[in-house]
């Protein structure tokens, strides 16, 4: 084998990119810094892993007699999710019509309303729950408000993007025959986007069912209350029951909702 053949056997040298090296170093530094800051050591996990699995094993032997007590609060949780979704999406619907640039032409107004919407979107659901518990008081109403605000953030974002991508033809046609704003919205915009809106509301409902199950932990009503009680009294068998009930309900509702969304979009 000659020298050139030997060279051909070798792989071509990759171009060395200094940026990649910088990224890798940054990530490794970040890793060590964050291990230090959060005081997380792998040893901690292994030292206490028996405890963790112990809790897990206890949860895996759920106390079924407890499930009869769980159901009333489970229904309350679902009610909270429904009402939160309904209130949030009604507000979101009106708000979206105000921030869609192909309906409202005033750029300043839509810009300000969008900034407000983006700020509301950044606040996580449980945080909203904590704030509303402080404002309204302990109970499901705080949870409903928290979920409504959260739903608002989710639906507005998705919905206004959908509105802005609709076909402008019908709007122009209605403008041409002299329709007013409400008529344009009713006859040109809504028929095009109603299915999207319903689909987004269902999507928000899925998220709300998940979040409503833990809102009770901070006092915002629902099944989370029992979660807190049983965890505080180390009654893990009962906690296990609650968690299994939650997971089953979440999975069922996810399934129904995603199937109906698929049916809608067909």
């Amino acid at each position, binding site marked *: 084998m000659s020298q050139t053949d030997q060279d051909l056997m070798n792989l071509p040298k990759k171009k060395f990119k200094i940026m990649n090296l910088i990224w890798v170093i940054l990530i490794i530094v970040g890793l060590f810094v964050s291990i230090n800051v959060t005081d997380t050591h792998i040893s901690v996990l292994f030292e206490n892993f028996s405890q*963790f699995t112990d809790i897990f094993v206890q949860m895996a032997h759920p106390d079924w007699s407890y499930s009869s007590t769980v159901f009333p609060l489970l229904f309350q949780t679902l009610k909270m999710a*429904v009402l939160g979704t309904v209130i949030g999406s009604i507000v979101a619907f009106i708000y979206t019509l105000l921030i869609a640039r192909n309906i409202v032409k005033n750029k300043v107004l839509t810009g300000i309303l969008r900034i407000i919407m*983006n700020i509301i979107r*950044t606040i996580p659901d449980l*945080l909203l729950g904590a704030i509303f518990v402080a*404002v309204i*008081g302990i109970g499901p109403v705080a949870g409903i408000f928290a979920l409504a605000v959260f739903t608002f953030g989710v639906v507005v974002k998705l919905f206004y993007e959908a509105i802005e991508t609709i076909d402008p033809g019908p709007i122009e046609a209605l403008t041409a025959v002299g329709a007013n704003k409400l008529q344009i919205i009713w006859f040109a915009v809504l028929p095009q986007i109603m299915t999207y809106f319903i689909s987004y509301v269902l999507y928000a409902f899925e998220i709300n069912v998940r979040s409503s199950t833990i809102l009770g932990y*901070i006092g915002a009503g629902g099944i989370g209350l029992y*979660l807190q009680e049983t965890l505080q009294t180390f009654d893990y068998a009962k906690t296990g029951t609650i968690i299994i009930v939650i997971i089953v309900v979440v*999975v069922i509702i996810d399934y129904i909702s995603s199937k109906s969304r698929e049916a809608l979009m067909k």
Partner: protein
Amino acid sequence: MDTTYKQLPPRPINKKKQLSHWLIMIVTVAIIIWSCTGINFGGIKSTAAQIAGAIFNGIFHPDWSYVYDGSGEDLVSQLWITFCIAFLGTFISAIISLPFAFWAANTRHKKWYVSRSGKIVLAVIRSFPEIILALMFIKAVGPGSAAGVLALGFHSVGMLAKLFSEAIENLEDGPNKAVTAVGGSKFNVIMFSTLPNLMPALISNTLYRFDVSIRSASILGLVGAGGIGYPLIIALEYRQWNRVGIILIGIVIMVVTIDWISGLIRKKLV
């Protein structure tokens, strides 16, 4: 003038569709009415408006002295801890997700039940609420950031591995075949075709997950798993509205900045 042209033609009526629409409508209304029953709307505290006003006032007159005082309990250090929890949690979950993703990915070299079982496992992990996981870790490793990191690390696997496995399913077979055709070993295939093609999707999905984790990390503190949530709930309990205001502003700024940066990086990657 002939007026007949002014009449619109009647709409075509699909009886079956109409009926199902009405049914869905009635069921929906019934569910909403059912939801209104048994919830006591009178339970709103009489001071609600006053407190809401106080919180708004606090947002516009934040407690600036809390931003940084070097004690380690101030806003900047707490946000920094929150950031680190999210970073480490995402990193751990990205590493755990890789094998799960290859397990759940529905490629054609595998039996169908392998990927199906992987997908089911991921779905169960996803639906296990994060806060409950955090509470379990608090019981195991004690309250603090470590519990938050572990909870995030395990919970994120459900979503991240799903995204990863979708990326793997979308990979084209061409580059793999090309490397095999020129005599590459299995190791060569992974090094020179699978990984380079997969990398952008992996990084982009991880960054996306990091955005989500930042939000989660800021609420983990509410249950005692470290981060900014703990001082917030303390401030809410002691009715220090100025402090609540500055913490909320801090969280919003952090989330918006990180969303923006990761959005920029992701745009560059794709």
